[in-house]
């Protein structure tokens, strides 16, 4: 009899073995006491068709399937259904499969059960995962956007976060605290060396995680200077796929940096809108933009007005406009290679 107080959970098992799916359906239905809706699919096409029709708490994938194996399907789901919780259930418990599954976004890597205890153990894990509260925040894809842009958005918004980066061979983390890059690590490297190595990667995946204090704070200085130095290293052709291949950074004494700014007190910042464009105004990324066309128009106008002011008075090169309205703050940056619009709500007013 179903437990009326328990949240009903929906699971989709994908496996090419019909007999195994039948066993799963029978055994887990009994264990769930009617609180699980169990769906099955024998291939990825059936699974995708079901996912398009229905929300599923957890997709459970076998790895060894013909045509498209479970890991490939997991990677496909990461693109077609970002945020979907996926667990792997396989008889191929190799370290390679575990690593690849986890790097592709699987939350559990479980062995196919053959004993009653094994089924109970797998059931408990899947039941807990299906009942877990979804992680707050967004998970999605940012195409044609580099780590520089991601870091810039985080720093401009004075956010605190951990940017986790991974490729097939490299895994690293960049720690951002109140808009400042305070630590980076990659393999055995730490500090600026690791940061420049990670920023030199040509491609990969990243996760933006809630901030956790790093073991050590190894990086000081303004984020703009750090990103400029990383760009300079890249320009000099010293970038490589592995951080170990990056030459030690050369810090020029007295090198000018354009500082971030609005003097601030410590306070919470909630990003409301983000627009990132190329220097020519092509939209590379936008998030929650309410009036994209108007924002693009304003950025274009701002560039013109700033150039005119620069021609009238000895003010130098324009960097950005900071706007403090009653309950929000907007930063509009216009540089030759990019235009940025970030609107945030702050707990305190602090424009100086």
């Amino acid at each position, binding site marked *: 009899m179903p437990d009326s107080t328990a949240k009903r959970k929906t699971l989709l098992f994908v496996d090419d073995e019909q007999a195994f799916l039948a066993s799963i359906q029978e055994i887990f239905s009994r264990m769930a006491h009617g609180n699980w809706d169990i769906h099955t699919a024998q291939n990825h096409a059936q699974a995708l068709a079901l996912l398009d029709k229905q929300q599923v708490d957890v997709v459970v994938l076998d790895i060894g399937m013909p045509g498209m194996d479970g890991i490939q399907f997991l990677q496909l789901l990461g693109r077609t259904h970002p945020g979907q919780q996926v667990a792997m259930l396989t008889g191929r418990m190799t370290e390679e499969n575990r690593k690849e599954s986890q790097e592709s976004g699987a939350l559990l890597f479980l062995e196919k059960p053959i004993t009653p205890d094994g089924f109970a153990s797998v059931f408990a894990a899947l039941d807990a995962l299906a009942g877990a509260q979804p992680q707050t925040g967004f998970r999605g894809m940012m195409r044609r956007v580099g780590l520089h842009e991601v870091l810039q958005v985080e720093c401009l918004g004075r956010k605190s976060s951990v940017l986790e980066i991974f490729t097939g061979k490299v895994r690293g983390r960049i720690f951002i605290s109140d808009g400042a890059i305070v630590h980076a690590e990659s393999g055995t490297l730490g500090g600026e060396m690791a940061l420049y190595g990670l920023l030199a990667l040509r491609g990969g995946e990243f996760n933006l995680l809630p901030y956790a204090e790093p073991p050590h704070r190894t990086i000081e200085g303004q984020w703009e200077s750090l990103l400029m130095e990383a760009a300079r290293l890249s320009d000099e052709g010293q970038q490589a796929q592995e951080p170990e291949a990056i030459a030690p950074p050369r810090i020029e004494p007295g090198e000018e940096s354009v500082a971030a700014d609005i*003097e601030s007190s410590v306070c919470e910042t909630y990003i409301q809108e983000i627009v990132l464009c190329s220097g020519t105004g092509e939209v590379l990324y936008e998030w929650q933009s309410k009036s994209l066309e108007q924002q693009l128009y*304003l950025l274009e106008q*701002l560039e013109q007005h*700033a150039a005119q002011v620069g021609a009238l008075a000895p003010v130098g*090169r324009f960097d950005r*406009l*900071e706007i403090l309205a009653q309950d929000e703050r907007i930063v509009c940056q216009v540089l030759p290679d990019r235009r940025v619009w970030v609107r945030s709500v702050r707990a305190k007013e602090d424009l*100086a």
Partner: protein
Amino acid sequence: MSEAIEAFLDGHLPLPGVAACSVRLPDRTCVTRCYDAGFNSAQVEQALDRLSATADSLRQQGVQPGRLCWVFDRCRVYLALHRDGGFLACFAENRPGATNTTLENLLESFIALPTLATATAGSTTRQPKTRH
């Protein structure tokens, strides 16, 4: 009543690091003070046209800015908007990380003025008083 604005500016200026200040009243009258040889009133007032155009564009987007800050390499231009429609612009040297509390007081005091009167036409300029 640009005299009142002149008195207001003279009560706060000059300030360290501030090269020029200008108030535009709702009738477009300007009261300008320049303290650096690189700035003159005509430049500053023309620049104000461009800065205010950006503020107008923001309003058209539904953003009601209270304060704006243009950050350039060598200079920051602060703009405080008064509810009467006038505004105060200050051209200050760009010193990242530094907090200029006296400039902050000037901007906040301007915003807090109960009214900006609009009697006198033309522009009044005094320059250069001091150089920073």
